[in-house]
């Protein structure tokens, strides 16, 4: 039953072994936040907000893949599901945006609980396939359920007034609102990863049987991580519904699940900034390619192949390894 870890296995899906020093990291984070604060004056805000939503989505996904070692191929369920819940609550029930977003998160957590319940029974590739299959079920549910408006999607969702005071229809208001929520979300992920709980997650990924024999209820931990990741992915989806004012089937397709993997892989699995960078690149690329006439799927596919073959650590992981690798090892 104890699966021996082959000592011939090379780099696996795990967090980057080389990391910058904490001080440097804080400086980088500070610079990043400053850039984001100033960004809407230079870059198109809608685009920035989309990027931020996907960045949070990718970070939430990375919480599971990078730090728990579970590759979910069904995260679109939480992202898109939460978008539907929020859109429905805000548009049909007339809820204020903050309540709608919380509902979306809660719904995503619940979906995560159900999907996780089945998926954590298996590991590795099996886990990926089960999540894929279950998310496909959810997709079919969304296609058929009346409240999602099927192919049309829930359109014209009002952005509303946050806490009754902040009018989200003003571009700068919504931008800074999204920025704050996304940063909070990413901070939460960072906290979880670098917490005693995160340490146990890591050890489970390393050697499940040993973790059990140390008295940890492995299934419980995995499920908890799964639900947290789902809830945060849901937060990203809810935000997106408010930003774009609609929720549609696109966000629950398996292609969306694939896209978030691409973002994480491209940026660097198991790094904090990687998924953010990956998300920005993918979102930017999709926008650029849309008007270039070059088929987007081909480009996406090629990036996948190149990433996997040439720089598996992702952009950030690769930078860490190149620039800081020798320092980090010592």
């Amino acid at each position, binding site marked *: 039953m104890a699966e021996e*870890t082959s000592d011939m296995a090379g780099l696996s899906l795990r967090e980057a072994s080389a990391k910058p020093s904490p001080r440097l990291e804080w400086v980088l984070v500070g610079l990043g936040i400053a850039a984001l604060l100033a960004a809407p004056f230079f870059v198109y805000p809608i685009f920035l907000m989309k990027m931020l939503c996907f960045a949070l989505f990718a970070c939430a996904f990375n919480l599971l893949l990078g730090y728990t070692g579970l590759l979910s191929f069904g995260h679109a369920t939480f992202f898109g599901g939460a978008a539907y819940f929020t859109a429905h609550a805000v548009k049909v029930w007339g809820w204020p945006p903050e309540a709608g977003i919380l509902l979306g998160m809660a719904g995503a957590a619940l979906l995560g609980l159900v999907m996780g319940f089945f998926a954590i029974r298996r590991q590795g590739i099996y886990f990926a396939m089960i999540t894929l299959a279950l998310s496909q079920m959810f997709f079919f549910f969304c296609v058929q359920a009346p409240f999602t408006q099927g192919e049309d999607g829930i359109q014209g969702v009002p952005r509303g007034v946050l806490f009754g005071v902040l009018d989200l229809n003003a571009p700068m208001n919504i931008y800074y609102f999204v920025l704050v929520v996304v940063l909070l979300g990413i901070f939460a992920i960072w*906290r*979880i990863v670098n917490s005693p709980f995160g*340490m146990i997650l*890591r*050890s489970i990924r*390393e050697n499940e049987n040993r973790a059990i*024999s140390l008295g940890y209820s492995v299934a419980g931990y995995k499920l908890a991580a799964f639900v947290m990741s789902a809830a945060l992915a849901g937060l990203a989806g809810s935000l997106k519904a408010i930003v774009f004012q609609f929720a549609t089937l696109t966000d629950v397709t398996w292609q969306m699940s694939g896209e978030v993997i691409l973002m994480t892989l491209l940026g660097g699995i198991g790094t904090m900034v990687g998924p953010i960078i990956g998300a920005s690149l993918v979102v930017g690329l999709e926008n650029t390619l849309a008007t270039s006439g070059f088929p987007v799927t081909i480009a996406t596919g090629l990036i996948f192949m190149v990433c996997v073959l040439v720089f598996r650590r992702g952009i950030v992981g690769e930078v860490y390894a190149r620039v800081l690798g020798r320092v980090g090892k010592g």
Partner: protein
Amino acid sequence: MTGAATVPPDLNAEEPRVVLSARGLRRDFAGFVAVRNVDLDVRHGNIHALIGPNGAGKTTVFNLLTKFLAPTSGRIELLGHDITRTSPAKVARMGLVRSFQISAIFPHLSVLDNVRVALQRPAGLGIQFWRSLAALDRLTPRAMELLRSVGLDDATNRLAGDLSYGRKRVLEIATTLALDPKVLLLDEPMAGMGHEDVATVSALIRSVAGDRAVLMVEHNLTVVADLCDWITVMQRGEVLAAGDYATVSRDERVKVAYMGTADD
């Protein structure tokens, strides 16, 4: 609780109390009976050896006791509680901790973190996802102490996976001890160790056995003779003999089945 012991254990000062017991343990694998009718009593403060030829069922008994395998029939009690149907993690939390025959460590964590992970749960730091890692710093002194006691303090910051086989085993024992278990199950703790390490680990086991029970599978008879208070010999899934080393080693059946005719 369940009345197997007639006297409340702690009142009986003469015989150390039984902390782990098995009755009529049996396990079938697709028609093959790997363990049958095994009774076992492990006592507080004792080092108990389980020996026997290869394939006798020792590891299987370990797996049954720690609930990694479900017994086909029989009953297991830990500290007076029936654990026949309890989950392995629960059993571990109740104080029954094992090592594995194939070394079990967290290869990509540092040696220090390997031990700290084991210390986390008893210290109540298992689920704090909102606290910083610095919360674990208070575990470091204890972890260092454990590493020092097994001679791994020179490697605290190395990745555990980079240690040699023998030192991985030593690390594994250190993490096991970190849980301060009531009952410690060691599956061939000395396998693959150099002589020096064997001596260190023997001393270590002896020193920790004082206030807990140890059940170990071991082929190194010098170690067994030296360390163990009680020995159960298994053969073909059954208990062949039991007693202290002197008794068991004189047993003809044991000689034929296990010890062989060579020296020792």
